[in-house]
């Protein structure tokens, strides 16, 4: 099977965020492979191990994002491509989905493209479905399990984790599969994997390479980034002689403040 996994680089989730010169800043916090995408990489690898074939990791991002692709290679991906062009710098989801769809088309005869649930920086959670729509492939979003994959008949059955339960859906390949964390437990890169990845030459693709020269127009602009206002008040500790007294006081305060 020819398998793609789309990965993004994001600041570590433990980073403290601030606004510096009108831009988001995460200080010295490390940049990592988007945590949700670890599950996508793992699922791509598990699928390859079961069905044979190869896994290519794709990333649209700045030069630093090479590290995220190296992480994907270290986990076991066979190839990686960094898509980079000044034209893509202020990409919104409209542009990102267009770029990723064009890159997937260029790779030809792809069977499955895996995505994470969302990028933890922009919190959009739409890129997988948008790429699927552009390619005209089934969008299997929020997948918590792949219950059947038939490489010969070219069909897939999955369980999608919706608010109300798991929706069981099947469709033809090629398909876009966006995964949630229930689907697997991502592996750690092996020592060998890390060594291989550190030596890997990661090719760069420009807008022209994927046939998108001169026709990229984001829809969105971002006039301002803000730090949310703090919850305001200091914590009010409720004290008392015994649990019943404390609980009684807390209940009274909640009722007084019209919280309940």
């Amino acid at each position, binding site marked *: 099977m020819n398998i793609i996994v789309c990965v993004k680089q994001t600041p570590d989730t433990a980073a403290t965020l601030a606004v510096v010169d009108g831009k988001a800043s995460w200080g010295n916090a490390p940049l990592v492979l988007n945590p949700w995408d670890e599950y996508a990489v793992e699922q791509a690898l598990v699928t390859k191990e079961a069905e044979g074939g190869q896994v290519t990791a794709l990333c649209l991002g700045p030069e630093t994002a090479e590290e995220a692709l190296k992480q994907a290679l270290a986990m076991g991906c066979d190839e990686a491509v960094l898509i980079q062009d000044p034209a893509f710098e202020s990409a919104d989801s409209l542009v990102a989905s267009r770029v990723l769809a064009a890159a997937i088309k260029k790779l030809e005869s792809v069977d499955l493209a895996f995505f994470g649930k969302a990028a933890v920086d922009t919190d959009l959670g739409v890129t997988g*479905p948008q790429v699927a729509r552009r390619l005209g492939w089934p969008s299997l979003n929020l997948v918590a399990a792949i219950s059947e994959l038939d490489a010969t008949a070219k069909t897939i059955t999955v369980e999608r984790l919706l608010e109300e339960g798991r929706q069981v859906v099947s469709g033809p390949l090629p398909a876009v599969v966006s995964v949630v964390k229930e689907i697997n437990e991502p592996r750690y890169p092996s020592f060998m994997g890390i060594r291989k990845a550190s030596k890997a030459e990661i090719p760069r693709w420009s807008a022209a390479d994927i046939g998108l020269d001169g026709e990229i127009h984001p829809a969105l602009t971002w006039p301002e980034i803000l730090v949310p206002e703090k919850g305001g008040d200091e914590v009010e500790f409720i004290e008392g002689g015994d649990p019943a007294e404390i609980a009684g006081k807390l209940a009274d305060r909640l009722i007084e403040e019209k919280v309940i």
Partner: protein
Amino acid sequence: MIIVYIDHFDGRAIPASWETLGVGESLAEAIGSDTKAVVLGTGVEAIAQEALDFGAGEALLADEPMFEDFRPEVYAEALTQIVKDNDPEIVLFPTTSRSRELAGMLAVDLDTGLSPDIVDYELDGTVIVATRPIYAGKLLIKEINQAKRPQVLTTRSRAFPTPEKGAAAAGAVTRVELELGEPVTEVHGYKESAGGVTLADAAVIVSGGRGTSNNPALEPPAEITDEKEQEIWRAQQGFKLIGELAMVLGAAVGASRAAVDAGYIPYSNQVGQTGKVVSPDLYIACGISGAIQHLAGMRTAKTIVAINKDSDAPIFKLARFGVVGDLYDIVPALTEALGEKLGKG
């Protein structure tokens, strides 16, 4: 015109849809326009009617066997046709798993921008300046779609008020005819449909963390000999107390990732960066330290109460009310006190 997509499941509208409709009505009033609610499904005429009760100017209904269950490619094709026929200035969705995906596809079909999960907005003429959380709510970003139309947005659950149900619904339900291609996916049904109050819609959430397993006084039944199993059993006694408090408050039960990873409670209850993002009126955190990834999922709660043994736990920095104590003492006492005071004891 403003189109509002009404999400539903099992014959009932998702309550957040009405909040979204309320946003549509406010916008319509401000820009001198009207709202049309769109309902796609099978046997969903009552939902279209309800949209009128909630103030929609008109309800566009496509009631077809092919909409029996949500399939994104089918719903997107239908919605794109409806939007093209109506040429709205704005299309709004509630932020649910289904609608977020649908909004993304609509934006692709119409080659326009999408702002998912907005929590606030201002108007600049007819241009929406939307505010949405990024970096798991650690920052807010203002976002504008100046260049393309329609403006497509999804509104976060409970970030906007539910409109009053009006007595005099003036609008009418209009049935729309659509010509759709063959669907490519097939839905086979649902597994483990969740009961109870869903986290996203809950006005009150009571959550438990690793602290639920910390009650050495509890003696597990003799047949549970495995240490890990004993820990889970203890935690489940803690979650039982949390469940009882939730019951008195009509609340949903949440959990930290530590509690989920340790097998105390299913993932569907997890709140946080890699779980659900919630904005209830009241969030009661019991035995949760307040790691940044947990706060990412609940920091927008209106009032936070923390119950924790450790007065230095970071959760107290965000909390409005705090109790330094053992959840095994405080939670049942609070259940009792609230039961009495709220007349449910």
